[in-house]
């Protein structure tokens, strides 16, 4: 089995994986980072979004071996150093941008990438960006508000 190594949330990790192992499986099953979720297997729902080398990626669509040598960030790395919620996370709580919480890690990771690329997105730009993240609970209304608030707070 191939050996791979990468940096996840700032820590160096390595492991041996089958060639068919997906990045999301490596994160969840080998590293125990179960905050990244699997919702659909077809790259539609976005519950598995992580950052690979600074870009949001659906971790169910990428082989773990393809992330060899990469810098990976997951929801577990998004809080502040003191453990308090980061700006986007706090905005989601303040604006009730989550209900069951299952899509939430992917939403937060996707929103973080949007706000890196566009510091002040319009409602339409946020909705268009989130097209690849499905939420069945919130109707998106409060997710959009949360991302707008995070942008205003300088996330």
């Amino acid at each position: 089995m191939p050996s791979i190594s990468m940096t996840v949330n700032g820590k160096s990790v390595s492991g041996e994986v089958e060639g068919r192992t997906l990045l999301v499986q490596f994160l969840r099953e080998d590293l125990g980072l179960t905050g990244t979720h699997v919702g659909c297997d077809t790259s539609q729902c976005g519950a598995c979004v992580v950052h690979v080398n600074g870009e949001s990626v659906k971790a169910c669509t990428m082989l773990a071996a393809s992330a060899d040598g990469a810098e990976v960030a997951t929801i577990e790395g998004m809080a502040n150093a003191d453990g308090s919620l980061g700006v986007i996370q706090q905005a989601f709580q303040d604006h009730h941008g989550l209900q069951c919480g299952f899509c939430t890690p992917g939403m937060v990771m996707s929103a973080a990438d949007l706000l890196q690329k566009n510091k002040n997105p319009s409602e339409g730009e946020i909705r268009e960006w989130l097209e690849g993240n499905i939420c069945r609970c919130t109707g998106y209304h409060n997710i959009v508000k949360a991302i707008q608030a995070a942008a205003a707070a300088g996330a």
Partner: protein
Amino acid sequence: MPKDQGIGASSKRREDVRFLTGKGQYTDDINRPGQTYAYFLRSNVAHGKINGIDTSAAASAPGVVGIFTAKDLEAAGGVPCGWQVTDKHGEPMKEPKHPILAEGKVCHVGDPIAAVIAESLNQARDAAELIDLDIEELPPVIDMRAAISGGPTVHDEAPDNICFDWDFIADNKEAVDQAIAGAHHVTTLTLTNNRLVANAVEPRCAIGEYDAARDEHTLYTTSQNPHVIRLLMGAFVLSIPEHKLRVVAPDVGGGFGSKIYHYAEEAFVTWAAKAVGRPIKWTADRSESFMSDAQGRDHQTKVELALDENGKFLALRCETLANMGAYLSTFAPCVPTYLHGTLLSGNYTTPVIHTNVKAVFTNTVPVDAYRGAGRPEATFQLERTIDKAAREMGIDPVELRKRNFIAPDAFPYQTPVAVQYDTGNYGATMDKAVAMADLDSYAARKTASEAKGKRRGLGIASYIEACGIAPSSLVGALGARAGLYEAATVRVNPTGNVAVMTGSHSHGQGHETTFAQVVAEMLGCDEANVDIVHGDTAKIPFGMGTYGSRSIAVGGSAIVRSVEKIIEKGKKIAAHLMEAAEADVTFADGQFSVAGTDKSVDWGTVALTAYVPHNFPHETLEPGLEETSFYDPANFTYPAGAYICEVEVDADTGKVDIASFVAADDFGNVINPMIVEGQVHGGLTQGLGQALLENCVYDENGQLVSASLMDYAMPRADDMPSFGVDHSCQTPCTHNPLGVKGCGEAGAIGSPPALVNAVVDALSDLGVTHIDMPVSPGRVWAAIQAAQN
């Protein structure tokens, strides 16, 4: 200034911190020592006879721990149904066995045939490919009308494919027929309520574990009601007594009804964990969810509404075919009957109503309750038909509804379909919605749309629902094989903090926050001192779970009753401490006081004394401070409201855009406005998804064409508008202690007719009178062409 604690405060959700940091614990996040993995080999045909299953090659594949088929499960029962409907001839419904693994025949695509247990999921899946199946295809039963018109049958027990033929209310039939025959105007509409898939973003998952030394089973499962699963699986499928079976439903990633039911996979992993002597995990992939989660809706209905010359409703007659799928899911029979027929009075004074429902078996995935469950189907029939009647009679659709609303002084109001509404004010929510929608400037918006080459339409809908499910005596008389009370234990610990064990289950609704608000309000303490525990049969006394917008109305009421008992016992302890008569002790703001004196003791002293009873009158007072209540509601609750939708339609492409949507709801008293509004947003989006996008499609062979999220159109952020929501019109429930009605399903019930009414309004001058859901571009375009030709 708004409150920052207790009832009425928009307290931030305490559960969010773990979800936002990746520390939620969903079932698939749990791994047990020595765990193996299950993979189910499922039927790829809709209907077939199993002539042979050869597992010999698979059994020797790498990593395989065991392979099981129906013959291994002969001692187990079938998956039970929890509701028995009696048909119009007094006969019980047809109830064919639903085996854990297919016995001799397969009845729908996705029906599980064999299960492979292996060291890894990949090994289980690889081995399953080596199983040699010999299945003789049989003609499939897919279309409901064809199903009841002779031909092949799904089950021998139901030779006409009819599960039950139900009249409600049979005694009304003659009066309804007479009223329709003699009416000034009759509006007729034939419509389909499209089949849906719940698609909670978390797929179902189950982990079975067996402790041989203690002879104890544990099931971790994605459930809305772990005690119900323990009862159904333990008593009816696997013969395991409750004290040897623990069911844990940890964080659950959405349910919407689909995680109420007891599923074959849960029983299998529980049984097989003992057979192989190791824990077993099964997690559905999304296509498996499409093929095995109970689906929703799927009704075909003819509606006839009789009106007098002033537009007063005289009678309503509905005939429905309701798809049950291949087997009866846990609550399937009650959805098209008692959750549907009882709501056909809507918000209106229609004096006589009759409905006939034929429930039909087909070779499709079982159908059961999905957010709203029967009530969306009833509301859609009524509100589409009323809209059509308004257009036919030239009466404004708001005005026609108002002429027929039950007046606010007419409550309690006995409908002709068995239920009694306790309270409501339907004109108030309609007036509120009209104001929110700014209808005075609608003409200007319509002109602006036309300038862009778009057609603008306005859609109105009212709704009522029966929630807070439900009085046990009533549902028992109607065929429920369970009571529908709720349980709660409130435990005050020695230092005064409080643990609440509730039988309600939160899978997104925020109970850990709202229930703590209720308790904190009653005890005059900080919300942070109240912990809410749910989802584990080993920790909770009992529970019927969360569905039917019942958690705050029934589960919350059980908590209130227990807190009331705590306060009563606290008064006894305080009276003892203050050497006062118990009758003179009052409790407010966390202090026990003697009326008319300056004597008082605080909460913490009373709590500590309960557990350190050195000087206690033991002959009259037990130590400890813990109380349990079972609350059985006296009636349903009846949330109601009015919704208004504006759409823009591109007549060239058929594409519909939601321009605006406002919702005015009466939920009675509200505990946490922020959470209530979030529930409405989510419900609206599910209803609008049904109306605009979603459709579960089987082809003529019974193949599930829409079996992935690439094929089934879910509402996404760019399909939806921001919503205007209001819950200020409040007529509190008269029969529960909090005056609450429930808010979880309203949005999904009221929004589909509002959207379709708007689309038809936009196209009515072209001659379009109805379009079935989803009003996708192809259907809208075809309706325009058909009307013009």
